[in-house]
């Protein structure tokens, strides 16, 4: 018998179940489920992994295995309300991407992958964001910030932003 989840809300479970008819088995719901939980909680704690596994009928280790592979889902604590991916791949690097990342981390007093103490902002290096026509660029939640200078990026990342979908 499946116990009532504590971390996963009824809405999250309903969203996961709504996608179930799309796939011939429930394991394929792993990534969608992780995204659904992460969109709400801004991280996927181990307790949530166990509950996702229970909902999907999998071993927790199967879900955890997938989660850790991607290095995308934070597990220890939530990422910031704004999660900024700063591109460091070749096209952006040629136009100052590394410098941009360094400047932003310094300006906010955090290391790459770190979150500001107020929980507002996380800065992460990203590999190619596929927006090389706007290099250097940043993906902040759902917003693509194009042709960024360090100063412009600093100002942009102070703005409040809609949650990533």
């Amino acid at each position, binding site marked *: 018998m499946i116990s009532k989840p504590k971390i996963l809300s009824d809405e999250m479970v309903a969203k996961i179940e709504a996608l179930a008819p*799309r*796939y*011939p*088995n429930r*394991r*394929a*719901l*792993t*990534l*969608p489920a*992780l*995204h659904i939980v992460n969109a709400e909680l801004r991280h996927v704690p181990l307790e949530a992994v166990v509950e996702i596994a229970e909902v999907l009928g999998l071993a927790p280790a*199967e879900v955890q*295995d*997938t989660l850790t*592979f*991607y*290095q*995308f*889902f934070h597990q220890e604590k939530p990422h910031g309300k704004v999660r900024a*991916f700063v591109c*460091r*791949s*070749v*096209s952006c*690097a*040629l*136009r100052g991407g590394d410098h941009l990342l360094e400047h932003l981390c310094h300006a906010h007093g955090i290391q790459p992958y770190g979150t500001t103490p107020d929980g507002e902002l996380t800065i992460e290096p*990203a*590999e*190619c*964001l*596929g*927006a*090389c*026509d*706007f*290099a250097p660029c940043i*993906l902040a939640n*759902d917003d*693509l910030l194009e042709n960024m200078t360090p100063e412009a990026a600093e100002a942009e990342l102070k703005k409040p932003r809609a949650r*990533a*979908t």
Partner: protein
Amino acid sequence: MKPFKPVLLEAVGVPDGHTIASYKSRGGYAPLEKVLAEKQPADVVEMVKSSGLRGRGGAGFSTGLKWTFLPKDHPGPIYLCVNADESEPGTFNNRILMEDDPHQVIEGIILSSYATRASTAYIYLRYEYPRSWHRLQGAIDEAYAAGYLGKNIRGSNFSLDIYLHRGAAAYICGEETGLIESLEGKRAWPRIKPPFPAIEGLFRKPTVVNNVETMACVAQIARRGVEWFKSIGVPADPNNPRDPGSYGPKLYCLSGHVEKPGCYEAPLGITARELIDGFGGGVWKGRKAKAVIPGGISMGLMTESELDTPLDFAGPGKVGCLGLGTAAVVVIDDHTSIVDFLHNSCRFFAHESCGQCTPCREGTSWSLRMLERIKAGKGRLKDLDILLEIGQTMGMMPGSTICGLADGAAWPIKNAIKKFRGEFEDYIRRTNPSGWMVTDPVPALQIVGAH
């Protein structure tokens, strides 16, 4: 350079070009209706096969031929996976197609599903494209409402559902069997082939994996015809029976040190120089190019003197590059250190190696550690030989890995050192005057995290 009117990009800059009304006003979905009413799936396979269309995702394999590998009379289900995990550094044409003309992609998916008898198509979309996600979902909803998706489409007995599936920022998911594993909810470790996906793919069923731009080409071939498609590009080399030719328009992504970066449509076979000067406004700041990536970072480097190479499927290989890849052309100017370039490339592949095959996992991380050390002024000439040895021993071509990621990691190393060895040697001698000649083992500077 002959003027060429964009076809795949015709919706770019058109107000509301992403809507179904705009797409239909440009002639969209009429070809699909005609195909469903008049043609059998085998006719569509034959159409695409005879057009000479080669997959636009990087490998350049004949799309029609790939479809014929599916088992005949299979009871189903057969799956179509659309590879929208565009992650090759320098590449962004799929993003533009999905954002600006999603219905062109969807019509191509419906036609391809009809041809392959797939009743479910998954679009595996990389996480970093939220705008594409919304545009595609909006377009899928419109296509359902208009009766182009769902059960018994236009009374044809053909049914199709298209689902969007989102990735989680891993380059390896662009490898077709990595994509399949990821879609199944597992870590995206590529599979040993055979069996190829056409025989045993997604959920162990026959599966075709095609790129987004390939889907757009299928829609245009249905609309404009095989002869139109074959009239563009570079015909097969009559002296090479293994060359299937490079037909059709291609979306070239131009970025890096050019005046006007962007996605430009041109006939296959345009030279890198024509692209940079004709479309890109030349190398930025009036400088000269030192090196140019012909098709995404895994393809390696062309030198300035190699820029007249035609960017068709056969061209870049003739100057020692891996191939045309994604046709993402990245210009590196003569003020840039080739050491910095190679460091960036090695960092990318060390981060994105999936860790399954030891030669790739260790080779990419080792080469990054060596580049870190060289950059920090502790390089030795011997390192260049070790880097070359790593480059020559990891990958599918030497036969040491399951997928081609390691070949892609190796090519920039091999090309950079072979074509710019003098610059590497000068850098090492200059920055490490007391140690450049050392041949004894030296420690790495720092531990690099694995994926």
